[in-house]
């Protein structure tokens, strides 16, 4: 690996010229404050971008861009790097004209249908919560075999933000919902696709489902549904309806296109599982990961992300020998429910090939499975809900490869 290493050398003159010759910035006057009223990352960070996976989709408006997980720290995803999934393109909607309607599938579901302006929604009691959002199709390309080189493409339909909004329960209470009858909610967007998804009333009653306008301290980004988005913690991203315009309360699920033709999971025997909403416990090592080249032998911190749609991550184990032996990783606090959790483990790389894996366990004691275990039950044609343990092969050259084990 030495070939690529940027060493820390003592040059001929008795020291590193970067120290001995003071840099320009130590000897001059820099830029003024508020050069930019809304700042941007360093120019040296231009490699850190969301990206599309070549050949994955036939159009760019019904498509996806992946977050660069391999370059992120901690648990918060910068909003500018949040993954995107659009079905009919994204819009920047004028919030003064946006409305939210609450209605029932028939008169018995609630006392009175309501209309809210954004001004009104933003006056109501709000909460702020950190949650991950993962597309149900994340890692879907890898069900059969290795298909992509980096964790950006394999796991990058995943992001995590602090969301601020009004618990949907408050709005339904205002409408006088009959919670005995209305056990399902339809969420509908205002974009061309007018995305619709069914959400169980239990989740709303728990207070977890939010009608959200805030993300990481500011308003939602247009790509994430400005000015209003449903936040459905633990549930696949497609249910987090963007440009939210309507909530209907009903007594049956709705069989919408994205829960009756897509986001259904083909099982061995030819049946599809329908209404598979929960994102099960999963994890991935992000450093080192596919497409990277380690600079040197020696000490590394193996670091990655773990999450569960059923609650908190309880434990993450890491293997460097392809799953033969495991060590329990450190979890960074706070560990929050239905939120990314950063784990890490110290490792000294001896320069020999190594197979890195992580395995998360959640508070329900569900253990993230291997491909072998997952495929034994579900085959390899589900498309959705691939939460297998991921393997990265660190080669002697230092280059890291995406691999799957037999």
């Amino acid at each position: 690996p030495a070939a690529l290493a940027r060493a820390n050398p003592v040059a001929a003159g008795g020291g590193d010229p970067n120290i001995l010759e003071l840099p320009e910035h130590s000897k001059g006057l820099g830029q003024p404050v508020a050069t930019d009223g809304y700042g941007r990352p360093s120019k040296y960070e231009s490699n850190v971008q969301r990206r599309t996976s070549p050949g994955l989709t036939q159009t760019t408006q019904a498509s996806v861009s992946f977050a660069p997980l391999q370059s992120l720290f901690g648990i918060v995803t910068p909003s500018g790097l949040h993954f995107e999934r659009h079905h009919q393109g994204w819009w920047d909607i004028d919030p003064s004209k946006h409305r939210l309607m609450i209605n029932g599938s028939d008169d018995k579901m609630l006392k009175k249908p309501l209309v809210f302006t954004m001004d009104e929604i933003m006056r109501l009691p709000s909460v702020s919560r950190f949650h991950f959002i993962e597309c149900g199709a994340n890692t879907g390309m890898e069900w059969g075999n290795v298909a992509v080189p980096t964790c950006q493409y394999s796991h990058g339909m995943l992001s995590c933000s602090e969301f601020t909004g009004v618990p949907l329960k408050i709005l339904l209470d205002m409408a006088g919902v009959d919670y005995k009858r209305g056990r399902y909610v339809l969420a509908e967007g205002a974009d061309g696709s007018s995305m619709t998804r069914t959400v169980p009333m239990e989740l709303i009653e728990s207070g977890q489902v939010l009608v959200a306008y805030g993300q990481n301290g500011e308003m939602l980004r247009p790509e994430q549904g400005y000015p209003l988005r449903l936040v459905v913690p633990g549930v696949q991203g497609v249910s987090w309806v963007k440009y939210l315009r309507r909530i209907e309360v009903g007594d049956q699920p709705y069989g919408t296109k994205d829960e009756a033709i897509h986001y259904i999971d083909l099982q061995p025997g030819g049946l599809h599982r329908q209404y598979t909403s929960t994102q099960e416990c999963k994890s991935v090592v992000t450093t080192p990961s596919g497409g990277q080249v380690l600079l040197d032998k020696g000490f590394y911190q193996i670091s990655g992300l773990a999450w569960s749609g059923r609650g908190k991550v309880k434990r993450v184990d890491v293997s460097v020998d392809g799953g033969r032996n495991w060590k329990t990783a450190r979890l960074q606090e706070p560990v929050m429910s239905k939120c990314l959790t950063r784990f890490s483990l110290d490792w000294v790389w001896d320069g020999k090939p190594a197979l890195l894996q992580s395995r998360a366990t959640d508070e329900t004691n569900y253990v993230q499975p291997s491909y072998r275990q997952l495929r034994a039950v579900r085959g390899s044609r589900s498309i959705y809900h691939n939460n297998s343990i991921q393997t990265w092969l660190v080669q002697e050259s230092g280059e890291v490869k995406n691999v799957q084990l037999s």
Partner: protein
Amino acid sequence: QTAFAGIGRVATPQEVAAWDIDVRPDFKGLPKGSGSVAKGQEVWEGKCASCHGVFGESNEVFSPLVGGTTKDDVKTGRVARLNDSSFPGRTTLMKVATVSTLWDYINRAMPWNAPKSLSHEEVYAVTAYLLNMGGVIADGFTLSDANIADVQKLLPNRNGMTTNHGLWPGKGMGNGSKPDVHALACMKDCIAEPKVASFMPDFARNNHGDLSQQQRGVGPQRGADTTRPPAA
């Protein structure tokens, strides 16, 4: 809730009518109306075929809508080719188990670049034409709110769904969140020597672009220069 007096107002019937366009599997929400296969062909060729192909077979903008279903599937309500992993892709008609889904989706989202521009008659008609192309209904058929429940009984994959799984986070469906895969957190000597069974072939090395431009330029690692051959 008087606590929030002055916030929100009652929606008018016109407003609800303007936005409440969803159609459920039991056809709740389906507006009265009808449309013939013949009319559907017209709509299709004028407004749909450019993207989905004259026979709904194109995968230029999306996976094909029609194909892969058989007369036998119409009888059994299970699409046999879903078990044939050598069959390329899965068409819409191979998967969909509820005809309401087609009506609802075409009505709300198609044509892709002009959603919500179709009349109800056009939606009935083009849905009929799609089913006709899939061998579900005959050329002379007129689909309507009155007969759509009968058509539902012919859908090739109508018996193809199960909710017997642990991924519905509510009580109305599913098995109550019981997982199907049961792994154990073994810590020592868990498996025999691991063998690499799948990896990206060298010729695909640069398929996702030069990875050296896709990793941060500082830190414990760099990105692999995939414009050059790999070193082992």
